[in-house]
């Protein structure tokens, strides 16, 4: 099992954990954190391929991880602002109950 396969396995597992967390937990903050985990799993893949990918690969992987970290930060900020306004409108942050936006 080459280190690349190990890294990919590690990131897939982290992704799966994140997904399960997002699906199972009721509190919207945890759903958000599950999402963050999934994003981190993706970053893992980038660095894994940068480190173990074809030789002499340029640093685009690293640059891309930097950008994805920045986007994740922005997403977290907006997500939490949404949760706060959700809380203000619904008095609690239980996601399954926030179903006003429907067909």
């Amino acid at each position: 099992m080459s280190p690349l396969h190990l890294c990919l396995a590690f990131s897939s597992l982290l992704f799966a954990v994140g997904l399960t967390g997002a699906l199972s937990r009721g509190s919207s903050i945890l759903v958000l954190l599950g999402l963050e985990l999934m994003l981190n799993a993706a970053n893992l893949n980038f660095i894994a391929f940068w480190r173990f990918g074809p030789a002499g690969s340029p640093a685009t992987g690293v640059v891309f991880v930097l950008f994805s970290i920045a986007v994740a930060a922005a997403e977290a900020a907006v997500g939490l602002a949404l949760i706060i306004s959700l809380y203000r409108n619904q008095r609690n942050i239980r996601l399954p109950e926030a179903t006003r936006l429907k067909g």
Partner: protein
Amino acid sequence: MIPTPAQVWLIPCLPLLAAGLGAVTPRRGRRLAAAAAILGMLGALVLSGFALCGALAAPSVHAFSNFDWFALGDGAVRLGWLLDPLSALLCAMVSLVGVLIFVFSLGYMDEDPNFTRFFCFLSLFASAMLCVVLANSLLLLFIGWEVMGLASYLLIGFWFHKPAAAAAAKKAFIVTRIGDLGLLLGMVWLYSATGSLLFYDGGRGVLEAGVLGGLAAPGLAGGLAASTGIGLLVFCGAAGKSGQFPLHVWLPDAMEGPTPVSALIHAATMVAAGVFLIARMFPLFSADLALPSVPVHALTVVAGIGAITALLGAAIAVAQQDLKRVLAFSTISQLGYMMLALGVGSWVAAIFHLLTHAFFKALLFLSAGSVIHATHHEQDIRRLGGLRGPMRTTFATFAVGMMALAGVPFLFSGFWSKEAILRAASGWTVSSLPLYAGLAGVVLTAFYMTRLLCGVFGGEARSPAAAHAHESPATITVPLVVLSIGSIGLGFLGTPAWPWLQSQLTGERIPSRPLLEGGGLTVLSIVLVATGLGAGWALYARRGRATAGDKDPLEAAAPGIFAFLGARMKIDEAYAATVGRLCSLSAAFADFLDRRVWGGLVAALGKLGEGAGSLNSGADEAGINAAFDAVTRGLRRTGRAYSKAQTGEAQGYLRALAVAFVVLALLALFGGLR
């Protein structure tokens, strides 16, 4: 102090200034306007006198000075002033007669409220006439020509509150305008053919040999030369203005204007302008004589029209009752004589007759004016009579004018100028008809003039106004005396024995010939004059007419002809019947066309549009909309079905994503996509 061509423009400018001053002076500034007008004319007279001396000093030279009027494209429209014996003589005649008539009008128009306005129009007319006479460019001449037309309209219609005067002014303006159209077309043709409208321009002028050669070539359809075509068109203008046969109808009606106006404009100057125009452009008219193949020469047409007008004028004058109408028709006939002279090729005789005619016709009109003034506007000769007693000087001047006009031999100028014309007509090779018309004219002229003299001054006063008549004041009689001297004296300038005037005009020395060198022709004309006078004397002097109501002796002799001639040969009615009806018919037809045909068409189109619109909306309503609604209803139903899937639960969507991912991945792995 001889004015050079460059300063010649001052002559027309002074009366123009006077006209301007007159226009701005208020109605009560009577003395100021009159003084300005007379001073203007006197200035013009003095200057033209000096100009005459200058021109006569070098008779063969056409001194001109041209200038740019305005820039047109890369070239420029050029105008110019001309000083040669012809223009100098005319200019002197116009200004002299003008001054005399201005002085006459002082007395005549004395109690008229619009006194200032009258003098303003007179000065305007004088400056326009002088401009025409001195112009070196057909365009400048045309400008003066048009202003003269305007002035004549204003003056004829001076008493515009009289409907007859207003109608006469309109008629005069429109008829001359028809003639002017021909002149304008001729001018345009001339400009396009030669590129310039200047008469003399140092070799490039229209009347100079170089350019004329080009014009004289027979290039038009039917072998006509360009110069002939242009000549005929210019002749239309002249015919209109000088009251020749087809376009003479306006002149008798123009007598509605005040008598000084009739004297100045419809006797001496304006009507003479047509003759002057053809005399000025004589080289152009005679250019096609040299061509053998030209079917008709311009000058033959001129001669023909001139002969007809002379005969026609004289005949109608015999049967007129109104004092001024008789003189008007006499003017038409004399102008016919001048055109005849031009037609037969001797423009010098025409100009000589023009000069003499100006003096004695002005004299006759002013005498008539003084009669009318004295009899408080009584113009019908049937009610006049017996005025030789109370109005001695007027009678004497009227008699001098009558004898000059009739052509009483040796003493009076009319005889010499008429003889010159007859001699020229007899020398004409084309045909001798104009000669016979001329001779017939001589008899008739003598006859109707004696009829007029005896009718007005002979016999007993046939109306109270005539009875109370008394001699006019000095301002009226003095011009009469001066003019009568002119009528007698001017003749001696052009006699065959001492042809001073002819040599001045043509520019080369003409040998003096014996006085009666015409031989039989002169004797014949003297006999004819005598017969005319005798017949007149016989019919009117001795037996005369007792009361206003009696019939005219001639009428008793030939009532049908007399009535026909009295009604001016029904030419006006003929015009009305033909042209008048044609216009009203075409107007009616145009109105019908516009209202019924085009209006109908537009209305039909409108209806068509409405029908199509309603048809369209019907189809749209029933067909398309219905189908469209059905489709939207179906869409809405399926939309609602799908919206059920939108539960609002975020995690629900995430689960769906996960499941879909798994399914797709499996498909990708095992579906053989690898």
